[in-house]
């Protein structure tokens, strides 16, 4: 029989999988508004927030939920070459394979010929572009122009840092109809997030170890960032696994602060 700590550790592996999506009240509301926005005749939807706030997970979830009923395309890694970007869109959306180079003008022609009914929002293909801050400014400009045709709907995610926040706003202010900001979790939300995640994997014993003071400590270290929390908890359970292998006594009712701090030191959240 596998240790409960090993199972719990696996829960917090940092992967973007729609099945791992955890429903939290605030996040659910945001997700619902994003889904509603897609149904509206909007050209560009901006999803932004600090790294680790769940933007990629949102896109994955959206793709997972809508793929059965809508033409939707998810690009997790940016296609930085402009021509390659057009070729990929033409191939995926319009099923046109280009052996040679495809430029912006040719792409616009393809869109015109596709004769997509822009009134029927379900017919308009949705392109989900993750990590859009990596696209060049020129390509971003082209994406904006493509969205102006209303034949393709773009949902893009951007990292929000102090500088990037400004860029995001300046670039898209005139074209964006919907912008959604994702934030770090509060302490209460983080508790629900951790416990739900563990319970989803049937780790009930370890889920009950996360009392409010323990979660507060974790929140203090990670500031509610989901990615940092996942990393921290993965290491925390790794520590448990190590102690378990050494047959060291462990209180399974409470997580010692020492273990949390050790995990934080290992993940770099504490500079020691």
């Amino acid at each position, binding site marked *: 029989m596998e240790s409960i700590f090993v199972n719990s550790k696996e829960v917090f592996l940092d992967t973007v999988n729609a099945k791992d999506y955890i429903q939290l009240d605030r996040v659910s509301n945001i997700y619902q508004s994003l889904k509603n926005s897609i149904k509206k005749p909007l050209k560009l939807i901006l999803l932004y927030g600090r790294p680790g706030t769940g933007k990629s997970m949102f896109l994955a979830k959206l793709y997972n939920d809508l793929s059965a009923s809508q033409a939707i395309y998810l690009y997790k890694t940016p296609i930085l070459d402009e021509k390659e970007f057009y070729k990929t869109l033409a191939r995926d959306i319009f099923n046109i394979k280009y052996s040679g180079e495809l430029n912006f003008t040719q792409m616009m022609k393809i869109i015109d010929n596709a004769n997509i009914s822009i009134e029927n929002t379900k017919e308009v293909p949705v392109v989900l572009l993750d990590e859009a801050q990596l696209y060049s400014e020129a390509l971003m400009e082209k994406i904006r122009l493509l969205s102006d045709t209303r034949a393709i709907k773009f949902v893009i995610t951007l990292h929000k840092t102090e500088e990037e926040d400004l860029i995001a706003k300046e670039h898209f202010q005139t074209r964006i109809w919907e912008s959604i900001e994702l934030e770090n979790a509060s302490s209460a939300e983080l508790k629900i997030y951790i416990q739900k995640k563990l319970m989803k994997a049937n780790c009930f014993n370890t889920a009950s170890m996360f009392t409010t003071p323990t979660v507060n400590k974790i929140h203090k270290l990670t500031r509610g960032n989901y990615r940092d929390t996942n990393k921290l908890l993965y290491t925390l359970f*790794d*520590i448990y696994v*190590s*102690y378990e292998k050494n047959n060291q006594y462990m209180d399974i009712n409470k997580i010692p602060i020492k273990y949390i*701090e*050790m995990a934080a*030191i*290992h993940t770099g959240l504490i500079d*020691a």
Partner: protein
Amino acid sequence: MLNIPELEKRWLRYKIKSSIPYAVISLISIIVLIVGANYLLNNSNTIEKTKTTVRVPVEKKSHYVQKETPKKQKVQPRKQEMQTTSNTKTVLKPSMNFLHTIKNEVQTTQVVTLHAKPQTLKKTASVAVVQPKPVKQEVAQTAVKLEKEEVTPNYISIKRRDTKKDIHEIIKRFKKNHNPALSLFVAKKYYELGEYKKAYNYALITNQINQDIEDSWIVFAKSLVKLNQKQKAIKTLKKYIDYSSSSTAQILLNEIQSGKFK
């Protein structure tokens, strides 16, 4: 797989590092508290000393002097404070001078010893007169000097020769408030001055106000003896002894009867 021993070492280092500011703050707080408490204790001790040393000369002074020479009295505690602050090893002893005060009331009220220079007092008085003159700076300088001189630890004697004037003052006060203590005081003073009739009168007044004052009956009887009314004095004393069983009155009666007191 994690290197747990190494991680534990790093954690221990982190804990020590993070607890240093708290330890420093705690240490500083403790030091501040100790120093503060020490200072307060020392301070309260010096205040205690000052208070007790000041009390001694106040006890020495008679009621009279307090009223007549308030300026001089103010000088006294200041001087005492200076003495105590400069000499912290002052040993406090209970003052038994009040016994002498009781015995020799007449002497103490006439001659009072104060810690101040008579010359300086005179000078300050003259300075007050000189004030309106144009040489203001000089006057101010001399005033400062004179004030400083007042603190010098020399002793002066003020002889009081105006007992009668004082008695009149007390009589005035007595007429206002009819305090038997004042009338008794007047009776005693007149007795001491040899004015036995007046002493008799005031003792009588005192007895009428309050018939439980032993001293008043004593002065009353003594005055009668001095006024050649020995039998009346004996009769009065006997009545008083029956009423109060006063031993002092009994002693006086015996002395009168034996002829010791004339």
